[in-house]
Each structure stands twice: as structure tokens, then as C-alpha cells.
């Protein structure tokens, strides 16, 4: 289990992570979502005791990471697949880790097999590895100590579609056997297929978290009318948060409220339905746009923070 409580990291006047709290339960995969620069990696480094937090705390199986006697046996960590000595062979990287953790050398071969690095690849130096191979090696490294918890930062980066599919199966299996998984991504689609829970972070703050199904269902309502501007005006007058979606207007309210607002204004709707993943995706797009410094597509979007954060 991972428990993060009010984690905050400030660099001078810049706040990278602000008051982040969430829990990852055994048997679940938690997707940690956010655009690049949102604070995902900083949060994960704080969980793993590599970055000292300005405030707040994080525990793994009830203990701060730095107080775990032999952390590799409790939690498998993959924060950056490229952070390996270019001059070591893949097998040597794992051999060194196994020796540090006191894991039998036999496990090195097993870990290599498990991630699909064959004998030829294992003998090559990491310098010659593709990013996908480094991710596999990093995953083998994380699994080597037979941990109960996994903390993975963008593990799908550089993997081909087949590799991503394989990794999903591996993580699902790990969680189904009682393990706890926290994995980050900047792509909603990537974690949607495997995560049970989602934690969405933007600008260092958690903007949404909860069960994946609830979040995806709670994505608001999609509504269309011939006169889009009039519809928007009507919804705004009714005090409903509205934003432009790709298909129509996205409203963070249920269908009934939207329908009533349109009826009151005398606007004929051409479509009215739950937005599904579109709502979360819209939220995500807005976050990404903000992170990139451009004006979000819909400036008047209101983030479903209060309702979704529990």
C-alpha cells in the first residue's frame, strides 16, 4: 500500500507539487495522470525518498521509504529507464541490483525472461539498447526483489503497441495477485485500459481522483444544438459549467439539468448524452494546454475538482 499525505515540493518560489494526497490499495492499479511537467515525477521521487519533500509525507506499507530496511524487496521502482550506466550489460545491471538486495542470482535470469530480454540482449551493453529495451530492463529491475508494490514512472514510454499490451497484462496480473501498482503516464488512453483508479494532476495539484469507471462516467454531458452559441448562452445563464468539446458542448452537469436549461431557453437539441471518457479527456486536454502555456481551448471550463476529489 502507498499512502501520500499532503506532499508539497517548492523550488524557491516555484511550487512543483502542492498538497498532493492519495492512496494506492493492494490489489489495484492506480494511474497517475498528468501532462508533462505536472509534478508526477517529482511526486514519485518524493515517495521513493529521492527528493526531500518541503512538506507532507509518503509511506509504503506503513513506513517512510527511507526507513524500509531493504526497499527493493518491498517496492519495485522504475523512475527513469535511461538512468543506467551505458557501459554495463543488461545482465550486469540486474546482477548488481540482486547482489545489493541479497536476491539469489538465479532470479536475474528469471527476471530477464519475464520481461522478454533474451540471452543476446542481456549480454549487450545498455548503450546499445533501444528505449523499449531499457524499459523492459527497468521493469525487470523493479520486479527483481519480488516486491509487493510497484512504482513506475512512464513505463510505457518507448514500448511498441505489443510491448504496451504485454506490460498491461503483467501489471494487471501483479495487482490481481494482491500487489499495489502506481504508474504514471501523460496519456489517458495508455492507463485507461489497465488502471482501476485514476489520480489526475495538473500544475502540481490533484484535479481529480477516484475509481476509473466513476470518473469516466462522471465526465459530464455532451450536448448539441443547431445554434451552438445560443445553447452555450442558455447553459451559462443556468449556471452550468460549459466548455467546447470536439463533438459538441461539454457540460459538467447531468443530462436532466442540461435538458431543462435548454428547454427553458426554448432551444431544440440535436443530441444529449453522457460524455463518457470525453469529459475526462477534455479535462486532460485543458490541463495539457495550460501546461504548454497556451490558452486552453475553452477558457471558461470549470474543472470538476470539488465533486470528484474525495
Amino acid at each position: 500500500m502507498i499512502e501520500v499525505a499532503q506532499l508539497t515540493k517548492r523550488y524557491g518560489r516555484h511550487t512543483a507539487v502542492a498538497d498532493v494526497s492519495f492512496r494506492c490499495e493492494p490489489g489495484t492499479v492506480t494511474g497517475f495522470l498528468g501532462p508533462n511537467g505536472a509534478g508526477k515525477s517529482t511526486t514519485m521521487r518524493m515517495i521513493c525518498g529521492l527528493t526531500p519533500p518541503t512538506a507532507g509525507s509518503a509511506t509504503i506499507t506503513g513506513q517512510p521509504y527511507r526507513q524500509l530496511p531493504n526497499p527493493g524487496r518491498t517496492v519495485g521502482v522504475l523512475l527513469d529507464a535511461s538512468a543506467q550506466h551505458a557501459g554495463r550489460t543488461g545482465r550486469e545491471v540486474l546482477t548488481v541490483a540482486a547482489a545489493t538486495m541479497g536476491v539469489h542470482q538465479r532470479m536475474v535470469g528469471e527476471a530477464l525472461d519475464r520481461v522478454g530480454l533474451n540471452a543476446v540482449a542481456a549480454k549487450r551493453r545498455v548503450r546499445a539498447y533501444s528505449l523499449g529495451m531499457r524499459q523492459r530492463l527497468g521493469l525487470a529491475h523493479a520486479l527483481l526483489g519480488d516486491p509487493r508494490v510497484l512504482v513506475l514512472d512512464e513505463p510505457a514510454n518507448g514500448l511498441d503497441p505489443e510491448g504496451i499490451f504485454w506490460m498491461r497484462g503483467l501489471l494487471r496480473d501483479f495487482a490481481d495477485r494482491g500487489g499495489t501498482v502506481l504508474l504514471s503516464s501523460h496519456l489517458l488512453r495508455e492507463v485507461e485500459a489497465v488502471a482501476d483508479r485514476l489520480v489526475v494532476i495538473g500544475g502540481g495539484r490533484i484535479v481529480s481522483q477516484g475509481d476509473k469507471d466513476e470518473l469516466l462516467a462522471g465526465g459530464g454531458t455532451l450536448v448539441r444544438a443547431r445554434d451552438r452559441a445560443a445553447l452555450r448562452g442558455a447553459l451559462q445563464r443556468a449556471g452550468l459549467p460549459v466548455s467546447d468539446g470536439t463533438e459538441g458542448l461539454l457540460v459538467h452537469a447531468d443530462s436532466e439539468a442540461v435538458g431543462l436549461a435548454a428547454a427553458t431557453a426554448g432551444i431544440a437539441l440535436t443530441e444529449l448524452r453522457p460524455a463518457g471518457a470525453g469529459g475526462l479527456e477534455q479535462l486532460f486536454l485543458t490541463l495539457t494546454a495550460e501546461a504548454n502555456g497556451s490558452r486552453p481551448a475553452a477558457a471558461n471550463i470549470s474543472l470538476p475538482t470539488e465533486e470528484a476529489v474525495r
Partner: protein
Amino acid sequence: MTTTRTAPEATRPSLVRLTVVEARKLVDTRAGRWLLITIGLVTAAVVVLQLVYAPDAEQTFANFFLPSLLPVALLLPVLGILSITSEWSQRTALTTFALVPRRERVIAAKLLALVAAALVSLLTSLAVAAVGTLIAEATGGAGGWRIGGTLLLHTAVFQVANVLLGAGFGLLLLHTPLAIVTYLVLPTAWSIVGELVRPLRRTAEWLDTGRTMEPLFTAEMTAGQWGRLAVSLLVWLVVPLLAGLARTMRREVA
């Protein structure tokens, strides 16, 4: 997740285990291996040169052994620097400190592994000098195996100090080229300034490691010489090690 756990997970890795791991990391990369091979080759080359060019009368074990230490003394600090700084330049600190969050234990293991490496280099020098002596005796050189126990001890201090000097610079600067350049330039610059600036001359006697380590090549060292050595190593070795340790403990690993 499997039922067969090979070792109790709650056991902290012992310092011995960490030292073995760090020693392994000195030799398991191409760069590290070549540095060690170079040290061996240079030692052999020095002895060969003496066999060819030194007068027969001077071809003794001690005369083969002592000069062979000098080039090694130049390379050992580089080994010390690399063992520390490569964790940051290659970014392996991320996995090293994730597996062993008590960073001071990793550093302690690194220093122990480096001391072991320095002592192994000493054994190599002794072995190569022995071969040189045997060849000298067979080819008309003077031969002769006399060497004092205190001299051996002094040379051990010399090589261990050299490797730890490098480690201290590496730990303080945490940057390979910067540490190597600073290590090579700073003491030399200090020697030159100590020579040129009259009022500094007395200070240099105490702080120039080039000078304070010189008596280690003799069998007899006075208390004054030990004192000067201790002061210079305090300034150039102990202080950087401690300051570097403090820096490493606090540094954010990214």
C-alpha cells in the same frame, strides 16, 4: 508475490555486501576495467624501463618497487573520482539510492572498495617488482630483496591516501571532468604558489600534499613529518570527504 522468498526482506544489506557490490562496480564497466588494466600495464612498463636503462647496481627490489608506485598514484585518484561521480553522470544514483536509501552506507562501501583497490594495486606493484628483480638477477643486475616493513606500510598509506583524495574531490564536486581537472590542477597550482610567494612557503610545507607525502618513500619518518602529512590530508582529504558526504546526503536525485 511468489511464496518462495529467498531471504528475509526485512534484513538491511550489510556493509560487507555493499562493499562487494561497489568493488564489482569498479570493474564491471569498460571504463573501469580499462583504468585498472592501465594501472597494471603502467606498473609493468616502469619496471621494464628500469630493467633496460637503470645501472645494474641499482636494479634492486626496492628500486623497482618505489618508482612503480608513482604512475599508479596518478591513476588511483581518477578511479576514486569516477567511482563517485559516475553515479551522477550516468544517473545510476537513481537506482543505487532507491535500493539503499541510507546514502552514507553506499558512500562508506565505496570508500572501503577503493581502499581495497589501492591495496590490490600495491600488491600488483610488489609482484611486478618481484618479477623485475628475478629478471635482474638473471641478467646481471644487482638484485637484492631488502625492503623494510615500515616502508611497505608507508607506501600503503601513500596509495590509500591517493585513492581517497580522489574520492573526496569526486564527492565534493559530483562532476567527473570538474573533479578530475580540479584534482590535477589545484595541488599543482598550490605548489607553484607556495614556491613563488615567500610568506606562503611555510604554509605550503604543511598543506602541499606533494611535499608532505614525499617522506612516505623513506623507511624513517619523523613525528614532524607525520604531523605535516596529517594536516595536509585533513585539509585535502578529510574536509572534502565530509563536505561531499553532507552534499550527497541532501542532494536531490533526479
